[in-house]
């Protein structure tokens, strides 16, 4: 019985580890371009690390980029 419980816990931990690694890999693929977008907009590139937050991280980054004034300037309304 103890062996079965230990096996289940071990498998669960392993699954969790793979899930975390997968999340980190996906986040990395998102962080690199977002880092560049943030720096081009004039924000700190570290803002893109919000992608590490599961589920809502991308919403936070997009919200900041969409609703704040870009320090490096935005396209003037005439160019849009």
């Amino acid at each position, binding site marked *: 019985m103890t062996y079965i419980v230990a096996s289940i816990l071990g498998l669960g931990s392993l699954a969790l580890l793979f899930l975390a690694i997968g999340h980190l890999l996906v986040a990395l*693929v*998102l962080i*690199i*371009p*977002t880092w*560049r*977008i943030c720096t*081009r*907009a*004039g924000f700190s590139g570290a803002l893109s690390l919000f992608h590490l937050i599961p589920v809502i991280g*991308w*919403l936070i980054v*997009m*919200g900041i*980029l*969409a*609703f704040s*004034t*870009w*320090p*490096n*300037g*935005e*396209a*003037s*309304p005439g*160019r*849009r």
Partner: protein
Amino acid sequence: MGLDVAALMGLFGLTGAFAVVGAVLAAWMAWRIVEKAGLPGWTGLGAVLLTLAVVSSIVPLILLWVFAFMRWPRDEPATAALGYGAPSGVPGPSPTPALAPPPKTLADRRGWRLTGSLPGGRGVAFAIDGSAAAYVLTGAPAAQAGELSLSDPSVGQPHARLLTAAGRLGLEDLGTPGGTFIDGARLLPEHGPRDISAARTIRLGSVELALSRA
């Protein structure tokens, strides 16, 4: 059993609601972000719609990478053919290469007026009649001809340069921390001189000046 089904349905409902709200928010924010970069807003909306249409694909990632590394219209030098050159004797961060004059001159030869008020409440007004090729906007008291003084701590010494050429008015930021803005959009030193003939307001640091024809 019924309770389990209800819980499952509730979970699906919540997930679906989150997905719908997230999609609408993403579309709205993508519209705004690409507009700030100078692209038409519908391209951002289209990207999100494409992402929704091709669920769980690599499409959003590709679009994100393309947007991050593409050339943004915002960064294109709008003043490349304006015909402004660096006037001699006027301080600046780097010499601006003299460019060829514009192919056509504008018929409107009136000057400009810059009016505003300093944070202390004092009014300020400058007349730009085009008699000089350049004017320097500075936070220090005007020491020589062509210097326009805005005595405010947020205004650099010097802060920006106004250039006149062929009936048009240009503005160039000289790299001060307070920043220079044209109709709310930040002007950076690397942008060079920008044509502000049709602009309504410029801001130097915290001092906002309304621009009008004299």
